[in-house]
């Protein structure tokens, strides 16, 4: 009966093949990474940040190894990678948050709008007003909601009159999607708010000084899914006016919010590409292993 085609007898073998649970042959650690080599599209036409051959070390430990990348204007870019891969260290270079760490040394070319971020005459306070930051844990000042947002504009002298300051506070809270919840209790102490509200307050505080860039270091890791969704919605809105750089441990978050995604591994920048590309067909083996959950 089966003389027409030999396929039927071969079928059983194939089925077994598909069912076997394979043993890993190549461990990701065995993969050699060439220093300074990044696959994908690390550079853009009109960069906000132009970062070339960046090296960061803590004493004798090299945390960032020869990374070159552009960050575009009004772009949302995510930095992903396993713990200790250097993504937060690299983020903190962008507004010199590493300055306070004595043993930390930053080398290479780091340009913001063609100005050297690490120039010796650079005013760091002014830099941080342009490049704001939101941290992992919400860290409002133990002051009123109003004072939290008004703090930056006050010290930077952005408002001369109370009415100007009121306007900045209202606008910032609106942009952070917190106005409706906070307008009736602006004098209430900020630490009494929920975690998600506190984080949005921190975003409002960062926006209040009219920054050009907002750096976010795992902004949602302490929040529940609803609060996370609201922050992500906010990121999407803010991307129209700001450049946003997010470090995240949640790959789904990177996939949801960012235009481009950069994958870091042991201090190397392995791959940068459009988020769609990274999550459907990454080019580098290590990126593939990380985002599919094969190590991390």
């Amino acid at each position: 009966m089966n003389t027409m085609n030999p396929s039927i007898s071969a079928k059983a073998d194939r089925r077994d093949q598909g069912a076997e649970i394979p043993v890993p042959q190549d461990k990701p650690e065995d993969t050699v990474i060439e220093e300074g080599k990044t696959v994908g599209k690390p550079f853009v036409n009109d960069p906000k940040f132009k970062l070339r051959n960046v090296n960061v070390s803590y004493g004798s430990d090299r945390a960032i190894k020869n990374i070159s990348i552009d960050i575009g204007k009004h772009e949302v870019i995510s930095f992903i990678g396993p713990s200790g891969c250097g993504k937060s260290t690299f983020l903190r270079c962008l507004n010199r948050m590493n300055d306070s760490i004595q043993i930390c040394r930053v080398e290479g070319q780091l340009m913001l709008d063609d100005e050297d971020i690490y120039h010796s005459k650079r005013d760091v306070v002014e830099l941080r007003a342009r490049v704001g930051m939101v941290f992992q844990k919400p860290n409002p000042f133990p002051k009123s909601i109003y004072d939290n947002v008004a703090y930056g504009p006050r010290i930077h002298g952005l408002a001369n009159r109370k009415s100007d300051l009121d306007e900045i506070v209202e606008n910032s809270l609106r942009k952070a999607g917190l106005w409706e919840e906070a307008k009736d209790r602006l004098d209430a102490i900020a630490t009494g708010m929920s975690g998600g509200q506190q984080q949005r307050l921190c975003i409002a505080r960062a926006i209040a000084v009219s920054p050009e860039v907002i750096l976010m270091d795992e902004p949602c890791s302490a929040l529940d899914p609803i609060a996370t969704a609201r922050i992500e919605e906010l990121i999407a809105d803010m991307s129209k006016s700001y450049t946003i750089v997010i470090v995240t441990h949640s790959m789904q978050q990177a996939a949801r919010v960012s235009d481009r995604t950069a994958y870091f591994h042991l201090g190397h920048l392995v791959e940068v590409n459009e988020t769609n590309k990274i999550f459907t067909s990454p080019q580098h083996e290590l990126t593939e292993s990380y985002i599919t959950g094969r190590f991390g």
Partner: protein
Amino acid sequence: MKKDKENAYGDHISHDFNNDLAALKADFLKMGGMVEEQLNNAVIALIDGDGNLADEVRAKDKIVDKLELELDEEATRIIARRQPAAKDLRLVIAVIKMVADLERVGDEAKKIAKFAMVLAEEGQAPRGYIEVRHISSHVSAMLHDALDAFARLDSEQALRVMKEDKMVDEEYKAATRTLLTFMMEDARNISRCMSVMWVLRALERVGDHACNVAEHVIFMVEGEDVRHSSVETAEKVVGR
């Protein structure tokens, strides 16, 4: 990515995830094996005039349909619970699409079985069976190779299947012409020849579905969608 293809879907940190993907692959191949068998049996029933076998094929199509539903459910569950990415995502998406093709092959087998019964009842000397035999062994080999390419993640073999489909199309055209001459020869042949023509048409469709499966295998392995593009484009994708 090319080396170590057989193990390509293992070694997740989560063992359950490994198991889910392995089960999806195995169940897909199980359905593939079943559909292959359905097709071969339908053709045997036709050529041997075996009404019982044709009956069996028609009854078993329900099982194929059931497998389609099960596989879709399995794939949906993996997406919902594991949020697969990159090659895992491509595997799940490709399976969802290929399952539809396999189900259609099952339908074509059922159709052939139906004509097998019609033709067996008429019981005359067969016209056009040489063509049926020829094309059926061709498309059945294509289906087999496409499933094999899936099992081994072999995009080169998938590419060969894509190329075969062009040949089947040519063979189908030639067979149609032959049957037309039979019909012109003697008008009493028309009814039978039309039935055989439908069978040939079904077989040609099986070739198309095997080709679709092959295209999905290339997508799965190479990360590039080669549907609706020329064989040359597919060659470039596979040859990278």
